[in-house]
């Protein structure tokens, strides 16, 4: 029984990595920014998530959204069932979008999908946050 609990704990812990600054995807995203002041949009998904697909396939590429999104944000995606999740980035629904600055400071969290225009408005608002 103890062995089983230990294995279960290790399995759960293995899904949680270290701090966000040590996350390989995050580091790559920050490196890709160069001197630009962009934000990282970390998207939590699962395989069976129509809302995630809607955001990735439709909203992110919608006229008006796409140009602004890729000019000011770098997207990284984590499948919550397959990826190591950084500490302090728990989720209560899928998709969850975390907006993080270069230093690893979480600026905002959005749970659930958004339609293109409200999503664009959120991007503008979040970019304006200090």
């Amino acid at each position, binding site marked *: 029984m103890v062995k089983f609990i230990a294995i279960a704990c290790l399995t759960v812990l293995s899904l949680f990595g270290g701090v966000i600054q040590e996350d390989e995807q995050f580091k790559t995203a920050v490196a890709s920014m160069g001197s630009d002041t962009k934000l990282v949009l970390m998207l939590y998904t699962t395989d069976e998530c*129509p*809302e995630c*697909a*809607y955001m990735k396939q*439709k909203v992110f590429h919608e006229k008006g959204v796409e140009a602004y999104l890729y000019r000011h944000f770098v997207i990284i995606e984590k499948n919550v069932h397959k990826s190591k999740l950084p500490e302090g980035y728990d989720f209560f629904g899928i998709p969850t979008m975390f907006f993080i600055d270069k230093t690893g400071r979480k600026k905002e969290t959005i749970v659930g*999908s958004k*339609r293109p225009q409200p999503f664009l408005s959120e991007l503008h608002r979040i970019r304006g946050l200090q």
Partner: protein
Amino acid sequence: MKAVLAAMLMGWIALSAYDPTHLKKAMEEKECIGCDLRGANLSNSDFSGADFHGSDLSGADMRESIFEMADFNDCNLSGVNARGTLFWKGTMMRSDLSSIQARGANFKGVHLEHSNLNFADFRGTKSWKADFTDAQTVKTDFTDAELGDAKFIRNNLSTAKLAKSLLWQTRFSATVMTKQQCVYARKEEALLDAKVICR
């Protein structure tokens, strides 16, 4: 006049005459099968995983409660106030949801096959991947509802309201729709098969 008022009062009493022992059981055990919960107050509570199948909850107040993965199969939910209620991944098959007030409620992944949604208020609901197969939808209001990846099979939607609804990858098969609804659904990137009737 007195007779009318008396009749209205009696009608109201009949509608809200839940069994107190059933309500107690529902609140404490989160399970009440075949219960009389007419007009009961089930608002602002957590009933995740609860089993209510075969119960009469008509006119109940379920506002802002959590019924995640709850079983409402074969229930009477007519006239329920379910504004902002969460029914995520629950089952409501063969249930009567006529005239339910569910504005802003969460029906993601909910099974509503063979249910009665006539005159239901589903405005602004989050109903991703919900299954409406064989549901009755006379004057159902889906305005502004998120119905992405939901399934509508063998429904007559011609009197339902679909304005501003999100229909991305929503599947329609053997449904009856107005021409206007069909145009809108295709624009929203819904999937309409050859059996859909647009008239």
